[in-house]
């Protein structure tokens, strides 16, 4: 095996299982690693230095960190539809057979032809897009943007549907702990022992945080062993839930936290399990123990593969038994860099030099290492990987790895999600949370500036005890685990000056100290402007290793202090979350529920074509053998209904049951036309307005008894009308004796229409005098059907024919449609779908949503006479505003092409003959069209200025979108049987 950089097991066993080797592929290269490796640790063990190309300049880049803060080592994981771009190699758990490829280069990674971009860097500084690609404007979409997109950027999508499953779930707890490092584990122990319900989540797959990366001793054992012992104790508690591989990514209102658990990302195949679970955690209190992230120092050419964070160098050695180089140099402004040097040296790794800008005595003696105090690294060399470093004292040293530590930044992200603003702490040279944390949130440990082990352990313990006591639990008497505090001393030192080369601040976005200074020089001085102008701190890492460095350089350039310069704050998510996780199972057919009508199974048996109407699937037409087009079916259904009889499932219409002694008075408020005096046993058409006078909905309401009405609404507005009526009932008329219940799903309802409808219904309905006198137009009654099944009968007509609507409890719907078809067989009854329904209503001049589109008033549809002036109803007052009833307002008209062979299109505009089709000359529009088999031509409904007085005029229907211009005759909207004699017959 080619693990040339793996440290001997006796010197550093690490947390890997060397008896479990694994094979993986990076680009075309096959490599080996072990159970417990990340992709990054395994690549480093194989000596793989160059793993990526940078975003803008296509510079060679290597692994920089050992955690989710990684700016460089972004790879595409897996292949085909499972391919995932921009995955951090530092968090990707190794599994046998893993495949990864590098991104953002053309040609092989080692010879990226786009690296020529690096030579153009003088022209590509901050804001270069804004300046370079400004003109000509037309070039942007066709030329500039495609080029920029192809040359800059991150990974690519597979463009295939994501085959993985994602789940969502809800969790509840007394205390949520984000982070299972020393402070988090210490807190979980204290809270768990008190009996509180605790959830502790950590993004890593081995819990313990830095305890797994350091050589700490806690309570007489290694930090890792203490973490394992603590986790075992927590796992044994019924009141504690441990969530490994889970990132708390957002702090939301009222103690709700978003968490992403990666269930199967570490397995070769997810099988039938969900890949990830998005948890919504309801906590009474949350304790943030998110630790701290190390940052770099800016110096010339500080971005070469092999230059990485000193803490990451230490982590690779301690946790994964990997030496990140054969000749390791350390550049540090604080004591933690020295820790790296001592620990690697003890494991037999050659430390060539330690460079510390502090003018103090060396912190340690490291055998064989050149120690330079009061100096800095000022340049580096090595084309695809680091070879050499140059110091400010002129010395040149060979090194293939340079561990850099510019200090540690507390992970305050979750404290900022509700606009909390961190404050600068000079002692630790970092931002710590200000006082304005989200309600119910506490922060402890390194995330709060407790930068040493003993302090972090006791901060977690103390915070948890305080919280659970507040929640009413009794603190356990157990003491906090004992540990020493390592030294923590830092000099604020941000970047090495005195050179003209590029010194990187943000590796992910290729932002250098020059860019920050240029931003300042060009007036983008506030941190928010700095971020947008230079892209500092954007993209997948959100500047975890670069933000503080960037604003320190800005502070220096403006001559201000860091607290005066301020900081940007963080929004969710803490780390990227796949869109698929937010979607969960709600995709494709499951994006919204599917509602089936009671006759759906029957219609399906007839071969019906279905159409989605909101959530409903409705039969659109019923094809028959020999039909050449859909129109053949629709025309047949219309002709047969008008000639004999047809049946249509109208169960999707909203149905609201209204009861109470004030039911009539209540309806009088809801509808603009009078309802108080509707006789029992009669139906009335009702028009509903919005309070601003615009038409809202219409439908029929039947008075079944003195105090019982049954309302229908349009299919689309069923939910909204019910909501508005509940508002009126509870908020406007709280003392009315009226009760509402939605019964849309409870009743199956069929329209039976046509000259033979009466004969068919006589066979269906029990014991009702079906004569025109016995059950006249607009009659209604509670009835039984088919020999005793309870039902309701309404004589209402949408088609203009003699028509009935019969309703039965939904479970009898399937049986009833079959009974109606049997009863109608002798009349050659036809089922009809929504298309035929639409044709007949256009012929008849009935309005639907195409007309009542949220802009139309009762006046526009010639129904202003229905808005009673003798009573107060919703919308009545404002419907009479001067401009809404002005003469030049559009009015509903019917429209027919002058040439019968012409077609019409909805959306066409009415234009007078001999005028240009301009906005000024616009006279109105066509809202609905259909081919009418009755008139044997296209007809339509539309709105025309003063249209009610223009019947008989010839004007044009101009459609600029479809390129048509048709002469049309304006007619009454009531084209079929205008007197209404048929439906009353």
């Amino acid at each position, binding site marked *: 095996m080619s693990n040339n950089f793996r440290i001997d097991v006796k010197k550093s066993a690490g947390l890997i299982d060397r008896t479990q080797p694994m094979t993986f592929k990076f680009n075309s290269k096959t490599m080996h690693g072990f159970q417990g490796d990340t992709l990054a640790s395994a690549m480093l063990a194989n000596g793989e230095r160059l793993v990526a190309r940078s975003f803008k300049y296509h510079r060679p880049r290597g692994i920089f960190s050992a955690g989710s803060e990684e700016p460089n080592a972004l790879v595409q994981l897996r292949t085909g539809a499972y391919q995932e771009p921009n995955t951090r190699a530092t968090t990707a758990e190794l599994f046998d057979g893993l495949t990864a490829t590098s991104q953002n280069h053309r040609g092989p990674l080692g010879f990226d032809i786009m690296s020529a971009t690096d030579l153009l860097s003088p022209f590509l500084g901050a804001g270069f897009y804004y300046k370079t690609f400004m003109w000509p404007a037309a070039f942007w979409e066709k030329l500039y943007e495609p080029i920029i997109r192809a040359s800059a950027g991150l990974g690519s999508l597979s463009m295939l549907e994501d085959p993985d499953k994602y789940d969502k779930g809800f969790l509840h707890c007394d205390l949520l702990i984000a982070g299972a490092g020393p402070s988090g584990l210490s807190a979980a122990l204290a809270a768990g022992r008190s009996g509180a319900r605790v959830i502790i989540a950590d993004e890593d797959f081995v819990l313990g945080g830095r305890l797994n990366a350091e050589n700490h001793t806690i309570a007489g054992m290694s930090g890792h062993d203490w973490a394992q012992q603590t986790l075992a104790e927590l796992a044994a508690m019924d009141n504690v839930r441990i969530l490994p591989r889970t990132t708390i990514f957002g702090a939301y209102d009222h*103690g709700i936290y978003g968490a992403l658990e990666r269930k199967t990302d570490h397995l070769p195949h997810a099988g039938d399990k969900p890949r990830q679970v998005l948890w919504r955690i309801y906590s009474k209190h949350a304790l943030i123990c998110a630790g701290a992230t190390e940052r770099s120092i800016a110096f010339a050419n500080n971005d070469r593969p092999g230059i990485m964070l000193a803490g990451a160098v230490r982590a690779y050695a301690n946790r994964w038994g990997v030496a990140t180089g054969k000749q390791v140099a350390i550049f540090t402004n604080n004591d933690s860099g020295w820790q790296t040097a001592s620990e690697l040296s003890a494991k037999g790794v050659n430390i060539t030099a330690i460079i510390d800008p502090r003018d103090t005595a060396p912190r340690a003696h490291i055998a064989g290492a050149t120690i330079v105090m009061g100096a800095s690294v000022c340049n580096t060399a090595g084309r695809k990987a680091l070879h050499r470093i140059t110091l400010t004292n002129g010395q040149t040293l060979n090194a293939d790895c340079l561990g850099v530590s510019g200090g540690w930044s507390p992970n305050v992200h979750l404290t900022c999600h509700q606009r909390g603003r961190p404050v600068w702490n000079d002692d630790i040279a970092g931002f710590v949370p200000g006082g304005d944390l989200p309600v119910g949130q506490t922060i402890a440990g390194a995330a709060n500036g407790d930068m040493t082990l003993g302090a972090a352990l006791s901060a977690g313990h103390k915070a948890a005890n305080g919280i659970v006591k507040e929640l009413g639990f009794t603190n356990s008497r157990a003491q906090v685990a004992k540990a020493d505090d390592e030294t923590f001393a830092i000099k604020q030192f941000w970047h090495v000056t005195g050179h003209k080369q590029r010194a990187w601040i943000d590796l992910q976005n290729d932002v250098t100290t020059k860019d920050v200074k240029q931003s300042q020089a060009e007036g983008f001085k506030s941190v928010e402007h700095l971020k947008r102008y230079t892209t500092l701190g954007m993209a997948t890492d959100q500047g975890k290793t670069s933000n503080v460095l960037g604003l320190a350089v800005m502070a220096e350039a403006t001559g201000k202090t860091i607290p005066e310069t301020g900081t940007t704050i963080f929004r969710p998510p803490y780390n990227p979350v796949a869109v698929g996780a937010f979607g969960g199972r709600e995709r494709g057919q499951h994006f919204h529920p599917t509602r089936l009508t009671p006759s759906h199974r029957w219609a399906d048996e007839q071969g019906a074509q279905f159409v989605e109407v909101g959530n409903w699937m409705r039969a659109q037409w019923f094809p028959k053998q020999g039909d050449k087009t859909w129109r053949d079916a629709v025309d047949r259904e219309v002709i047969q209904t008008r000639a004999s009889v047809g049946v249509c499932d109208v169960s999707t219409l909203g149905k609201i049951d209204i009861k109470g002694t004030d039911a009539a008075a209540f309806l009088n408020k809801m509808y603009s036309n009078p309802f108080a005096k509707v006789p029992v046993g009669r139906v009335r058409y009702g028009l509903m307005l919005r309070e601003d006078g615009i038409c809202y909905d219409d439908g029929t309401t039947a008075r079944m008894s003195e105090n019982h009405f049954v309302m229908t609404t349009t299919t689309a507005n069923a939910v909204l009308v019910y909501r508005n009526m509940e508002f009126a009932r509870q*908020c*406007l*008329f709280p003392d*009315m004796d009226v009760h509402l219940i939605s019964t849309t799903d409870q009743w199956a309802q069929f329209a039976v229409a046509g000259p033979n409808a009466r004969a068919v219904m006589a066979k269906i309905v029990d014991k009702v005098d079906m004569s025109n006198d016995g059950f006249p137009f607009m009659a209604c009654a509670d009835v039984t059907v088919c020999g005793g099944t309870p039902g309701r009968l309404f004589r209402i007509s949408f088609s203009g024919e003699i028509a009935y609507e019969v309703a039965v409890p939904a479970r009898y719907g399937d049986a009833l449609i079959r009974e109606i078809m049997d009863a109608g067989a002798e009349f050659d009854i036809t089922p009809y779908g929504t298309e035929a329904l639409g044709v007949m209503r256009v012929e008849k001049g009935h309005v639907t949503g195409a007309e009542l589109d949220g802009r139309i008033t009762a006046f526009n549809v010639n129904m202003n006479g229905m808005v009673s002036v003798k*009573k*107060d109803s919703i919308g009545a*007052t*404002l419907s009479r505003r001067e401009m809404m009833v002005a003469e030049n307002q559009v009015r509903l008209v019917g429209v027919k092409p002058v040439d019968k062979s012409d077609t019409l299109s909805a959306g066409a505009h009415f234009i007078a003959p001999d005028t240009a089709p301009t906005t000024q000359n616009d006279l109105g529009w066509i809202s609905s069209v259909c081919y009418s088999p009755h008139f044997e031509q296209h007809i339509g409904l539309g709105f025309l200025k003063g249209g009610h007085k223009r019947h008989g005029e010839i004007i044009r229907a101009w459609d600029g979108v479809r390129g048509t211009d048709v002469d049309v005759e304006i007619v009454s909207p009531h084209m079929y049987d205008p007197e209404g004699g048929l439906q009353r017959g």
Partner: protein
Amino acid sequence: MIINHPLLGPRDANEFVHLGDVSMIDRPDGMDADAAAKFHDYLYLRDNPAGEYRELWYHEAGDRSWLVVTRDTLTHAISSVELARDVARTRGRSK
């Protein structure tokens, strides 16, 4: 957000539909002489405070109660939740 429903206890805001200012309860009488002016103000004039705000929420995926929620628009802290029907009565509404 979590809304502490006066009848049902704490419920997730997902179950609710938001309408707006509690002043929607104070609907004028359409038969008043100056009804048009009153309706104009009722419909179009709203306060938009940075701070405490009383607003109407509807428990549509629940018991279909309309509620008056007092919420701080700066922090989302909810200080009281009442049944809108009770509030409507205290604001003088009846039939």
